[in-house]
């Protein structure tokens, strides 16, 4: 009886962990699919689209996750096939550096202006 209980416990634990792994894969899959552009749709992600292109990409992403590929490797695979445009979140390169650096520059410029104002206000008070 005790052995049976142990077997049931092992069975439940292993099945639970499998379920958990499926759930983690689904979360990762959805995260990736939401970040992939459906190239034949208008402003839709692969996750939102029901097109043939999107369903093929969904299958490929699912397959790559099951093969053990990491999120970045899957993006890299799709980039090689369709270019940077396929990913919603663009990578830093010569075409996108303005996009990435402009907010940082504006932030630094704004910070410098505020800092200067504070310093000059302090000096005025003294």
């Amino acid at each position, binding site marked *: 009886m005790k052995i049976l209980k142990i077997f049931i416990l092992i069975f439940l634990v292993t099945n639970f962990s499998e379920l958990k792994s499926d759930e983690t894969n689904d979360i990762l899959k959805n995260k990736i699919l939401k970040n992939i552009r459906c*190239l034949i749709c208008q402003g839709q992600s692969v996750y939102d689209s029901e097109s*043939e*292109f999107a369903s*093929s990409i969904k299958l490929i992403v699912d397959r790559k996750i099951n093969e053990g590929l990491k999120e970045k490797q899957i993006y890299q695979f799709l980039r*090689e*096939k369709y*270019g940077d445009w396929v990913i919603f979140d663009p990578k830093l390169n010569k075409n996108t550096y*303005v996009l990435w650096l402009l907010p940082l520059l504006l932030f630094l410029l704004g910070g410098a202006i505020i800092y200067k104002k504070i310093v000059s206000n302090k000096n005025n008070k003294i």
Partner: protein
Amino acid sequence: MKNKLILFVVVIFLSFCFIIFYKGLNTPNNYTPKVNEKKNIPIFKAKDFNSDSYINSDKIFEENTFYIVNIWASWCVPCRAEHPLLMQLSKNESIKLIGLNYRDNFSNAKKFIDDFGNPYSRILIDKDGTLGVEFGAFGVPETFLINKNKDIIKKFIGPINQEIVNEIKSIIK
């Protein structure tokens, strides 16, 4: 002096923004795929249309031969329009045509080939469209030109026309 410096910085900043937006407005916002980018052929395993057995990509493509990979389906109307041109290309001995039957029903695809002729030296089945993704395809019809070094050198999106056939012929000459 201080005001001049601020004015200078503001002018520089506004000019910069103007250039960025001007360039942004002038570039088309829709996606234009790269059709002349040289890529290696993907490594894959696919089901053969005639023998029903699986075959590896390295067994399909041999070196020193030009190949055309054409993605087609019996339900695709533009595929019918380009089919006579593929038949014409298949008569050329310096090139081999590989067909990728995309998301199709086997009996419909077979009927299509029986009715219109078979330009392909081999047909592969792409039941779920994932093989097309390996090639970087968007849908049907799509045609890829592969050179003697097994590189994809050109991609033709949509049905091919006489102009494209002439272009292919001039490349493989």
